[in-house]
């Protein structure tokens, strides 16, 4: 995936200026997720679960080589073919080989963030293979040729009207079609996809070393179908996704669901041990697991950032984040957005390409409170900020300005102060303001004229 993280401030400002509905959609969706997460945490002894999960993940990470070997041996014994990809090129080569050998013409994909990282869709399409995203949200953004804006709800930046419009243009559905109607149209198209596909591509939430089990969590059933119907199943799995014991799944599956959507368990969980066995009526003939490094081993070697690798990709930190809520995920310029993106992208890609991201936070700490594996996100944001300044990647004033933006986005008083400050600036000053966000704001509108009163003031003065 093309990385545009360095344009974060400009992109964030552009989204706020040109796509105000994004903030509404994302705010609504994330507040709802966050609320459900709180309720689901309250139902159990969440503190004990989180500490325990942190402990298990730390143990796995500090013995990762041993667990990878154990998992590999178990998977192979179960009849799974194991591959190793050092970077995106490797992974693409592996997937291309499997597709070529298996004479694959059609592929169904079950939502996988790793595949976005690796650029699997463009690769397969370049080979003349038809690729169909089957998660409803992923399917919608595939139609729009957009990347996902959220780890769990890839299309939460879109509202019902936009999706109605899209389906109207593509499938001639009425402009007031109900969500059920729209889903039924997608279901029909995707159902044909499942039945015709030669290969299904999934990610993996967990791989259990003890049993060689690949665990996948979802609500729609598209992952179960993608891993059941086609004759080949390829799972792209980050190499940090291991768990030691089969029974560890009980807490991890439930904790992930609680953190992500507030459910006790995902509606469908697949526990895959291997290809179809003699006597079984269906199932894939080949199962491949690709362990993907793509920067993860460097994160592991990092004396501070290694803790990022505990991440379950539940998106609870996105849902809790007042800065993410303003713009959604696209502005972050890479697959992973929000607080986890702000600490993982610098680790995977290097700071050079991602320098504004650690500033995309007001350090309010809500992400840490939400995180099911207690990743110290605020601390790591500071770590990356310090490194950026030390490496001379971010001039101090600019760093302060971006930080100011994050603060302004989350604190009503700071926002008021900042917007008042803009109004008091002489008009000229805005042409080359030092504040990059405000600069971006003024781009393309020669001489932004701040209104004499803020909207808030007008509201308070009874003028609107």
């Amino acid at each position: 995936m093309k990385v545009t993280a360095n344009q974060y401030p400009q992109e964030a400002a552009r989204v706020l200026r040109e796509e105000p509905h994004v903030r509404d959609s994302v705010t609504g969706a994330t507040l709802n997720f966050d609320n459900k997460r709180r309720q689901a945490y309250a139902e159990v002894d969440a503190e004990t679960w989180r500490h325990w999960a942190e402990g298990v993940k730390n143990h796995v990470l500090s013995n990762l080589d041993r667990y990878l070997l154990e998992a590999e041996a178990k998977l192979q014994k179960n009849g799974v073919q194991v591959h190793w990809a050092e970077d995106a090129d490797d992974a693409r080569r592996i997937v291309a080989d499997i597709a070529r050998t298996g004479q694959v013409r059609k592929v169904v994909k079950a939502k996988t963030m790793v595949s976005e990282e690796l650029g699997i869709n463009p690769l397969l399409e370049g080979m003349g293979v038809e690729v169909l995203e089957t998660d409803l949200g992923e399917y919608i953004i595939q139609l729009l040729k957009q990347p996902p804006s959220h780890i769990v709800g890839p299309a939460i930046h879109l509202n019902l009207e936009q999706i109605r419009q899209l389906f109207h243009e593509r499938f001639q559905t009425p402009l007031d079609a109900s969500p059920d109607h729209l889903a039924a149209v997608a279901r029909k198209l995707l159902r044909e996809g499942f039945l015709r596909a030669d290969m299904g591509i999934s990610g993996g939430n967990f791989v259990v070393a003890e049993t060689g089990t690949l665990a996948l969590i979802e609500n729609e059933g598209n992952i179960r179908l993608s891993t059941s119907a086609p004759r080949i199943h390829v799972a792209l799995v980050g190499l940090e996704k291991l768990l030691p014991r089969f029974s560890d799944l009980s807490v991890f599956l439930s904790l992930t669901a609680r953190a992500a959507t507030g459910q006790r368990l995902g509606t469908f969980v697949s526990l895959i041990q291997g290809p179809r066995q003699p006597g079984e009526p269906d199932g894939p003939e080949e199962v491949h697991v690709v362990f993907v490094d793509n920067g993860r081993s460097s994160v592991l070697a990092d004396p501070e950032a290694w803790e990022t690798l505990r991440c379950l990709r539940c998106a609870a930190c996105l849902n809790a984040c007042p800065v993410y809520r303003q713009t959604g995920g696209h502005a972050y310029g890479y697959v992973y957005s929000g607080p986890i993106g702000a600490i993982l992208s610098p680790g995977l890609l290097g700071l050079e390409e991602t320098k504004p991201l650690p500033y995309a936070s007001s350090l309010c700490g809500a992400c840490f409170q939400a995180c099911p594996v207690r990743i110290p996100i605020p601390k790591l944001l500071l770590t990356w900020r310090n490194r950026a300044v030390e490496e001379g990647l971010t001039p101090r004033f600019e760093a302060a300005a971006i930080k100011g933006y994050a603060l302004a986005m989350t604190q009503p008083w700071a926002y008021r102060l900042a917007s008042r400050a803009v109004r008091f600036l002489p008009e000229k000053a805005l042409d080359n303001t030092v504040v990059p966000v405000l600069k971006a704001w003024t781009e393309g509108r020669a001489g932004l004229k701040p209104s004499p009163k803020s909207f808030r003031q007008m509201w308070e003065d009874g003028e609107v």
Partner: protein
Amino acid sequence: MRERILGRIHRALEHRPKTLLPEPLPAVSLPPAETLTLFTERLSGNGGEVVRLENLEAAAEWLGHFAQTFAGVAVGQTVPPVLHPKLPVLPPEEAPLGVSWALGAVAETGTVVLSSQEGRRNQLLPPAHLVFVPEARIYPTLFEALNALKPSLPSAIGLHSGPSKSADIGQIMVKGVHGPGRLVVAVISGK
């Protein structure tokens, strides 16, 4: 590739202290309800339907009524013959009803445990899914269910906890997106 990656990981961890693996965490806080009651509550809460049946005979009789509204069925390989509805057998992609025999169930989460041994398509493609489970196989917690399953794992297990759903269209919940939009679990108490 493999050696290079493993070598990098090895070097990354060289000076990192190894932490201990915490003891397994059974991790539940179950309300003091009877297992079957809790299962019924939780699965209903997830949007599934639960039917309680005395024994196999009662189940067969109930099935006779239940099946009437369907035009055909796809039946899992491990479903006992007395629980095959008297309906035309159709391939899973055409059948309006799929019938399964579960390996077990979980009360805590309102979940049925389905094995690939009976076939995966009949669990996923028909719009309605009927699952039989003996009451004795309902485990209070997921932890207990997983421990019971571990010694003989089939090539794939599906944990189903309700009808297929999605809120990807404007945050509005729709059912039956890809998998069955209706899940009916029939719990059989006696023999």
